[in-house]
């Protein structure tokens, strides 16, 4: 059995999670404003709405990736010696990237959405200058460079410690050469797989980002719009998926501490993660099902892999968590409750994604609020729940491990708010309400207003989580 043998970089990670918690709250408030504006409860100029949407998208992807990275770094650093300075460099580059992005939106009025889809950043119709689009792209490049460095540090340590990529992915367990008892722990397998696809995603992302940047300043170096879209969605899909694959490491590592039962890398677990590694990269064409100029095989592959990629996730993480919890005597508190919620939300969020991944459905549904419905379940009730769970875990030593009343209330409020909020997106999507529209028709506004109320609940819950975290850190310092 491979056991944690190093002290994790607690203080650095606690600080990172504090930053991420603050960003999450701020972005939730921006989300609330957008829903309220769509419901005509407040008035926001359409140009400002798109700037807020760009900020919300980039900010939430950033916050999710930051929390995911912090979780992965924290737990991997319990098994191998990681150079702490690399994380500091990562965090610094990340924050500079955020500065550029915020500057491009607030000072430069950039509002082309976080996916910077060509040719919108280049042809703004006067809404923003070239410099603003360039600043946004440079910001993303800085964040990408930070991630690359962090992935390289973890990757090289895992490769040298666990006998190559194959060893870290537990291939010897698949082939039966090594017993699950001697296998690398689930956290290592998950981290290795994530690092591989995320690094490939970043390399492709960097290529399309730099091409877009060159195109902004030398327009005669044209970008092929379809190829650019493919590269952007490959990068974007891989990057946002990596956030939750990093965050799930917290489930693998923390839940066993609550049950006292080790979570081992079984053969099926190892196979599932190697499958995920391929599926995450092959599934991205399901974002391009409406692009009729795409080759048919790519779209069909997107649909098939969409179905397939649900299987390793649902069987391995969700199903094995259920089996694992049934036979154990888990102690419930905020951390364990949020982590289990995270896996549940993730699994549920996959269902609308698979539906949208069907070509026949996608033609009708993809530009409706069905899709934000899917990824808000996936993130709000999945990745973000896991991140708040990890934050609760980090301050566990400071307080009694009881599931206190205030925590129970906050959890309940967050859960109710999250379900109601995402349900409104799905309902609107089923009614063909378009997504990314600043102004809504009268008959769509009921769901917008209900969603606004639920968003408030989410924010109240999240506010309590973050406040408890801050108090927790403060008391922990003193003791």
């Amino acid at each position, binding site marked *: *059995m*491979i*056991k944690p*043998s190093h002290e994790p970089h607690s203080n650095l990670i606690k600080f990172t999670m504090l930053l991420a918690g603050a960003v999450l709250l701020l972005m939730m408030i921006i989300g609330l404003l957008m829903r309220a504006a769509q419901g005509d409860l407040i008035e926001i100029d359409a140009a400002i709405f798109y700037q807020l949407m760009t900020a919300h998208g980039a900010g939430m992807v950033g916050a999710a990736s930051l929390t995911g990275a912090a979780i992965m770094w924290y737990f991997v650093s319990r*098994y191998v010696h990681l150079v702490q300075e*690399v994380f500091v460099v990562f965090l610094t580059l990340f924050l500079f990237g955020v500065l550029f992005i915020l500057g491009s939106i607030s000072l430069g009025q950039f509002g082309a959405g976080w996916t910077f889809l060509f040719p919108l950043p280049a042809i703004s119709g006067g809404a923003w200058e070239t410099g603003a689009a360039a600043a946004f792209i440079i910001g993303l490049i800085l964040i990408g*460079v930070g991630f*690359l*460095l962090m992935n*390289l*540090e973890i*990757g*090289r340590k895992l*490769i*040298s*410690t*666990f*006998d*190559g*990529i*194959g*060893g870290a992915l537990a291939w010897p367990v698949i082939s039966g050469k090594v017993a699950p008892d*001697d296998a690398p722990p689930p956290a290592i397998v998950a981290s290795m797989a994530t690092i591989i696809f995320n*690094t490939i995603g*970043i*390399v*492709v992302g*960097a*290529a*399309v980002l*730099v*091409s877009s940047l*060159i195109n902004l300043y030398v327009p*005669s*170096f*044209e*970008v*092929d719009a379809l*190829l650019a879209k493919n590269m952007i969605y490959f990068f974007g899909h891989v990057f946002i998926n990596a956030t939750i694959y990093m965050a799930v490491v917290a489930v693998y590592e923390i839940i066993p501490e609550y049950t006292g039962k080790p979570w081992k890398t079984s053969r099926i677990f190892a196979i599932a993660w190697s499958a995920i590694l391929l599926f995450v990269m092959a599934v991205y064409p399901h974002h391009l099902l409406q692009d009729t100029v795409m080759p048919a095989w790519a779209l069909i592959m997107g649909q098939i892999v969409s179905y397939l990629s649900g299987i390793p996730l649902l069987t391995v993480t969700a199903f094995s968590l259920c089996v694992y919890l049934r036979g154990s005597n888990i102690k419930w508190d905020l951390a364990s409750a949020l982590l289990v919620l995270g896996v549940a939300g993730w699994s549920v969020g996959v269902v609308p994604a698979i539906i949208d991944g069907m070509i026949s459905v996608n033609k009708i549904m993809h530009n409706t609020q069905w899709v934000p419905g899917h990824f808000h379940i996936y993130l709000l009730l999945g990745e973000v729940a896991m991140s708040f769970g990890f934050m609760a875990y980090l301050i566990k030593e400071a307080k009694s491990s009881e599931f206190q009343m205030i925590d129970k209330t906050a959890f309940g409020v967050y859960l109710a708010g999250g379900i109601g909020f995402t349900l409104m997106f799905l309902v609107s999507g089923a009614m063909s309400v378009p997504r990314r529209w600043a102004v809504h028709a009268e008959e769509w506004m009921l769901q917008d207003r209900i969603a606004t109320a639920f968003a408030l609940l989410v924010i109240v819950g999240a506010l309590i989580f973050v406040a408890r975290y801050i108090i927790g850190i403060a008391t922990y310092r003193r003791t």
Partner: protein
Amino acid sequence: MIDGKMKLLISSLIFTFCVLSKGALEKLPLTHILVQLPLLICVGYLLVEDKSQKIGEWYIGGEWNKGGYASLLIAIFTIAFWMLPRSIDAAISSGTMELLKFLTVPLLIGVPLKLGWHRTHPILKGFLKAQAISMLGVAAFIYIHAPIRICNSYLENAQQDLGYGFLYTSIALAVIWSAPLFLSQSAKSFHLQILRG
């Protein structure tokens, strides 16, 4: 193992080949950029021995090149210079630039890479490799698709061939650099034994 003298011989043979095949290789941008220039880099790379005493301690392991940053920077700036389409155009149309190319590509790219690479931090190495793969992708993107002629000395379809050349080079480098990571590194696996305790 190939010893220092042998390397020097190979290096000068490649250089002679480059000079003699100048006309043939420079006829197409693909062979100019992706055959002649890499060969010239090899000329420089083979020119110096890591631990050779002939060049002197200062040059090989001196304080000035701590971490290999200085030599990498020299190489990167020189590469950037020769990546400019107008530099390549100039190397064809002007004899001075041609001479400059034959001197600077071995001496300011090949030699510094050799001097700096083994001193470079593994993370920086990984970063530069990822960067190289990515930027070859950018070059492929532009050269395949650009509706304008990037080099005045070459035809547009030859320019596209070069673009595909960049793409295949990028893929090849990705495979070459990542394949060894999948292999078992049994020499290091004693870590694993300790962890498994």
